[in-house]
Every structure is written in structure tokens, then in C-alpha cells.
């Protein structure tokens, strides 16, 4: 379960997130959408501490980061939160000096201090799951963008996260490679994984997400089920946004 209370984030004088309070129960699939610069990615990055929060509280499964706590205390909870959340980045960020399998098992070896043979068997299972077991010894440079992103998903799953965070997972992909990545994410959703997905793929959001958070100017402007949001958006901003996106 993820909860934020009055979460805010400032870059110098620029307020990127304004008092965001939201509750995300387990097993929910949430899509965060909105125009660029609306703070979607920043919101996601605040949840696992890749951005330091400027105000408010983030609560992930009872692990609490309070902007007013001392830095040491915050850092400690942030690290525990990261071990319970998996993150997938727009630019994949695979380790280029490690093979697909090594990418997946790295955290198992280093963070969980697992025996290599155990880690490898977990890693192989995960690569199987994303359909890339035959590429386990390939370096990222030898993989297509879609394959890299699937390895990145396997890497994030390796730590058995309670929640998966996706930061525009298909935005850097060639159009013909988007499908294979979305399929993997969809399968995860069907298995009941909790996820927060920042995305520009409207059709995907509509199909897969239980709930839509529509953000604009650092605020959650609309919070609705995906059906409600796409059929009948309540706010003017959401209507305008949808008109624009659907047009193309």
C-alpha cells in the first residue's frame, strides 16, 4: 500500500509537486497521465526516494519518509522502501558492462547477499518470464530497446517488490517495439502486481489500469477509475488533454 500526505517537491523556487495526497491500495494498477512537465515522473521518483521530498509524507507499506525527519532517518527508510519497490526507467538504464542475466541478479548478490547459484536460478526464471532466456548471456548493447526494457523489468522483479513503478517505460522505444513491453506489463497486472505506471500510451492505460491519476501543474487534477476517466472526464483540463491526445 502506498500513501502520500501533502507530498510536495520544490526545485529551488519551482514547485513541481503541490500537496499531493493519495492512497493506493495493494494490487491496484494505477496509470499516471498528464501533459509533460506536470510532475508525473517526479511524483513517481519521490515514492522511492530518487528525489528528495520537500514536504509531506510518503508511506510505502508502513515505511515512512517524512520531509521533516533528519536526513539519516529518511535515508534509512528510503533504502528499505527501495528494496520493496521495483523501478523501470524510460531509458532502461541497464548496466552495460553486465550481461542480461548479470543485470537481473546483481541486486540479489549485492543487496540480498544470495548464493550465486540461487540467484542465477531466480534470474533465469525471470528472464524466461519476459521471454528472453535465450539472451541471458548477451550484453545490453546487443539487445533491441524492447528487449533491454524487458530485461530491466526482470531486474526490477528480482527483488520481489511489493510494488512496481514504471516511469514512461515505452517512451524511448521504436513504435514496433512498444507492444512486447506492454505485453509483459499487462501480464504482471493480470497476476495481481501492484503498479504505478507513468505513461503516454492512452489505450494501454485504459485497458490495463484500474485507476487513473490525471496530473497537471504538479497537482492531481482528476482521480477516477479508468472507465470513468476516459468515457466521461469530470474536469475541463482532462477533457482538453484527452481531445488533444486522441486526435493524433
Amino acid at each position, binding site marked *: 500500500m502506498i500513501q502520500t500526505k501533502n507530498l510536495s517537491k520544490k526545485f529551488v523556487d519551482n514547485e513541481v509537486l503541490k500537496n499531493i495526497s493519495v492512497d493506493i491500495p495493494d494490487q491496484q494498477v494505477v496509470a499516471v497521465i498528464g501533459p509533460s512537465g506536470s510532475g508525473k515522473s517526479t511524483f513517481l521518483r519521490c515514492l522511492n526516494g*530518487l528525489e528528495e521530498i520537500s514536504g509531506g509524507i510518503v508511506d510505502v507499506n508502513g515505511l515512512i519518509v517524512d520531509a521533516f525527519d533528519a536526513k539519516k532517518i529518511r535515508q534509512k527508510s528510503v533504502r528499505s522502501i527501495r528494496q520493496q519497490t*521495483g523501478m523501470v526507467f524510460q531509458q532502461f*538504464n541497464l548496466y*552495460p558492462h553486465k550481461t542480461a542475466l548479470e543485470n537481473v541478479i546483481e541486486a540479489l548478490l549485492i543487496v540480498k547477499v544470495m548464493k550465486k547459484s540461487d540467484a542465477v536460478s531466480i534470474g533465469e526464471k525471470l528472464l524466461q518470464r519476459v521471454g528472453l532466456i535465450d539472451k541471458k548471456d548477451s550484453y545490453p548493447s546487443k539487445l533491441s530497446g524492447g528487449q533491454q526494457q524487458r530485461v530491466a523489468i526482470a531486474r*526490477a522483479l528480482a*527483488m520481489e517488490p511489493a510494488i512496481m513503478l514504471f516511469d514512461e517505460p515505452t517512451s524511448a522505444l521504436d513504435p514496433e517495439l512498444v507492444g512486447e513491453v506492454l505485453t509483459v506489463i499487462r501480464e504482471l497486472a493480470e497476476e495481481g502486481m501492484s503498479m504505478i505506471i507513468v505513461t503516454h500510451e492512452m489505450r494501454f492505460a485504459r485497458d490495463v489500469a484500474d485507476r487513473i491519476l490525471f496530473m497537471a501543474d504538479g497537482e492531481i487534477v482528476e482521480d477516477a477509475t479508468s472507465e470513468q476517466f476516459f468515457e466521461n472526464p469530470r474536469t475541463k483540463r482532462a477533457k482538453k488533454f484527452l481531445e488533444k491526445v486522441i486526435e493524433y
Partner: protein
Amino acid sequence: MNIVIENLPFLFKGAYYTLLITIISMFFGLIIGVLTAIARLKGNRLLQGISRVYVSIIRGTPPLVQIVIVYYGLVDYGITLGPLTAACIALSINIGAYVSETFRGAIQAIPSGQTEAALATGMSEQQAVRRIILPQAIRVAIPPLGNTFVGMLKETSLVSVIAVTELLRSAQLLVAQYYVYMPIYLSIGVMYWIMSTGFTFILNKVEKRLSVY
């Protein structure tokens, strides 16, 4: 030319010391350099300050001055070092500063997404540096490090001033004995050149090895 051939064993001994000093100083310089680069980038303010001052002093003073300070200067404080030890210490400290700048650049060349990916899986900052950032930075650093090390090999000739019988001083001793200049100096020039080429060759091999990905 006969003089050179007759005295080749003597010159080889000088070349041996040149190589020895180079390799020892490279080894410690590398350690100093990596630690300094990390201190500069990830350390607290004190560590950052210390490493910045260190690099600034070393880069801003002639290596010859650094060598004589370590060898002659420290004697005033009761620290007497053998010439070889002094040479290695001075050159390690010297090269460490240059290596640290090379590494600082290399570490900064690694995209921040790499650190973020590592942190997101629950690694500590230290683990991320050790496992993810440094191995990639080393690869970036190899070509400029090659330059530094070949420069180092040639810089060892400076320690002839503190009576380390490395290659240059061996030649000087021969010159003093036979009063013949050109063949002797020319032959050590060739020897330096061969050693530099050897180094470059090895570094190219290492670079190839590291670029499997």
C-alpha cells in the same frame, strides 16, 4: 657504439630501475587517484577540500621540486629516505593527482541513470559506486590513463637528480667515464621509446579486453 654494447648490461640495469619505479608509482598512484576522485565527488566537504588542495598543489608545482622536497626536504624533519623509496613516494603522489583528475572525468561521464538504477534496487551509494560506476569508469579512463603512464615512464628520468641509478643516470655515468655523448644518449632514447611502446601495447590489450560489451 662498442662502448654502448660493452655496457649494455649496465644500461639494462638502469632500464630495470626505470621500469621498477614506473610500475610501483603507477600502482600506488592508481590507488591514490581513485580514492581522491571518489573523495572529491562523493565525500563530505572536508574530504572534498583536501582532495582539491592536493590536486592543485601537485599540478601546480614541478615534479622535480616535489622529488627534492621528499628526498632532501624531509631530512630536516628527521625523515631520511633511501633514494629509491623517495623516488617512488614522490612519483606516486605526483601521478595520483593526475590519475584522480582522469578518474573524476570518467566517473562523471557515466550517466546518472546508472546510479539511479542501482539505488532503485536497494543498493547503497557505496555499493553502486563499487559495482556499477567504477567498472564503467575504468573503461572510459583507460586511454587517458595510458597517456599519463607513458608520461610517468619518461618522468622517472627526473629522479636521476637524487642519485637513483635509473636509465638516464646510468647513461650519465657512462658519459662521465668515456666522454662519449651521442651513442650513449641515443641508445637510452631508443630504450625509453621501446619501453613506452611496450606500455602502450599492453594498455591497448587491456582496453580491448575491457570492451567486450
